[in-house]
């Protein structure tokens, strides 16, 4: 169902100043519960696609709709709000502050939503507990293992109950075991109805996902339903 798509790209192009065509008429829909991998070599355009799906950038051609809103006409402030309300980001480098407890790091996910500090913390505790980090609330991120840190980052992405989780190389800094755990957590989220998009260059990671989109030279390459690496 097209109407239900949380992210919908229609003939999307992104040409950078200087004439570099990073994306060329790409169409794609992400629906609730999707567990989707975006793969491609560096320079393929997958980063540009991620930026557009995450409302971090606007297309130069075509339409990107996030939660039904077309990005092309939005102001910078409206784009910020859309990101804050709809999308949860997970980064390769975790981006946790060493100056705050794990709990406060997660609560930071709601900093720009207007929710009070106390309430933010309660919501953070709830998400952390669900991800099995209830015993780590007061620790600093430096005291955690890489896998735990990425789980904290996932909790921060989830704390605002976004419709989409966009993960940018979420296993890039983790060993295989921890990487698998993270992917399993994301799979669980997708099963719960959240759309999950993972951008990765790791085909093994992509292989475990429901759908794989391969980007090459700014276009989506047809990929069989189940990718075999």
């Amino acid at each position: 169902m097209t109407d239900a798509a949380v992210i919908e790209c229609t003939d999307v192009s992104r040409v950078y100043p200087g004439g570099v065509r990073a994306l060329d008429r790409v169409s794609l829909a992400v629906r609730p519960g999707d567990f989707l991998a975006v793969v491609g070599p560096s320079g393929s355009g997958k980063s540009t696609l991620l930026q557009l799906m995450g409302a971090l950038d606007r297309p130069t051609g075509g339409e990107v709709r996030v939660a039904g809103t077309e990005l092309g006409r939005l102001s910078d402030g409206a784009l910020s709000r859309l990101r804050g309300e709809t999308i949860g980001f997970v980064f390769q480098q975790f981006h946790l502050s060493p100056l705050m407890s794990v709990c406060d790091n997660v609560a930071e996910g709601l900093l720009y939503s207007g929710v009070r500090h106390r309430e933010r913390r309660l919501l953070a505790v709830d998400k952390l507990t669900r991800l099995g980090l209830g015993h780590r609330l007061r620790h600093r991120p430096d005291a955690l293992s890489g896998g735990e840190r990425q789980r904290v980052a996932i909790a921060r992405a989830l704390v605002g109950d976004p419709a989409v989780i966009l993960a940018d190389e979420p296993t890039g800094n983790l060993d295989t075991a921890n990487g698998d755990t993270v992917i399993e957590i994301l799979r669980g989220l997708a099963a719960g109805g959240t759309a999950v998009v993972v951008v990765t260059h790791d085909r093994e990671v992509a292989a475990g996902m429901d759908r794989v989109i391969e980007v090459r030279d700014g276009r989506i390459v047809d990929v069989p339903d189940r990718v075999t690496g």
Partner: protein
Amino acid sequence: MSRLRTGDVARLAARGLRGHPVRFLLSALGIAIGVAAMVAVTGIAQSSQADLDQKLDRLGTNLLTVLPAEDLNGEQTRLPPTAAAMLRRIAPVTAASAVGQLDDLGAYRSPYVPEGQTSSVVVAAVDTTLLATVRGEVSRGHWFTPAGSRYPTVVLGAAAARRLGIETPGTRVWVGDQWAVVVGVLAPLDLAPELDPAVMLPAGSAQQYFGSDGTATSVYVRTDEDRVAAVSDVVPATAAPESPELVSVSRPSSALEAKLAADDALDQLLLGLAAVGLLVGGIGVSNTMIIASIERRSEIGLRRALGATRPHIAIQFLAESLLMSVAGGVGGVVLGSLVTAYWSRAQGVPPALPVWVGALGIGLTAVVGSLAGLYPAVRASRESPVSALASL
């Protein structure tokens, strides 16, 4: 709409500064030094003013000093022996005391000191009312008593006592060609500092033993507070009816005020230098914040991904700059107050530091902090939202 609460802004700013405590302290110190200098200069000036006000309150501004000038041949003239008595007859005059310097006499520790070694002290015959007229204070011993003033006794000015090396009353000094007993030593005279190096003889015994002719080299006149100017106009003709043009009248309290006014000009200069210090401190803060905006690109990217708008980022950096600056300002006000307190203690004047000085100091740092943070804040807010992504 995305929104950031005021309390959260404060929390963000405090945390941002905690990330680099040494850098924060050094930048704040730059501001603190400028503000401390401003507060200290103002505090010291205010304390001096308070001290002068207190002094003038005690000493009065109604004292006139009457001095004979040099005549056409360049010779020092003297006032007639009747001058003080005549001046006392002017209605608003409450007291008039004559001082007659005895140029031929020297004062020495003993007859064996060579005559040329005068120790820069002068010998003067004074009316016994002088101490009350100039509102001087005796630091050791006592002033002339009616009985004592008939004998060769002396009271030493503060500088005279120091130069002769005499500490205790009862000591003898060799004046002219005979001994005289020191009965007292005065504290420095604020309104008549020219008497500090004087060895003072009572007028009666000066005439009897030391050959004084009763003429005066100065007369100190106290008048009614409100009639000082009027009295000053009639003083020359009264004191020296034969040659009023050779009499000058001055008001020593004006000299004290003028001295402070001269200090005022210096204070302005120092205040200007302190302002330059504050400006340099502000540039330091600005520089620190620019470095922070460059270093924290990925933090900015993360915040933009979490829903922060450009103004949110700008406000966060502005708040950090403001907090850094105001923290320095508070430290500077404390430091400047301590300097003022220490200075007044050392000078023995009452410390005076109005609250507005501190408030102004902190207010000024708030302005400096906002201006210093403006460019770094705008710069940080322009950082691209994609800066947190690995694939870049």
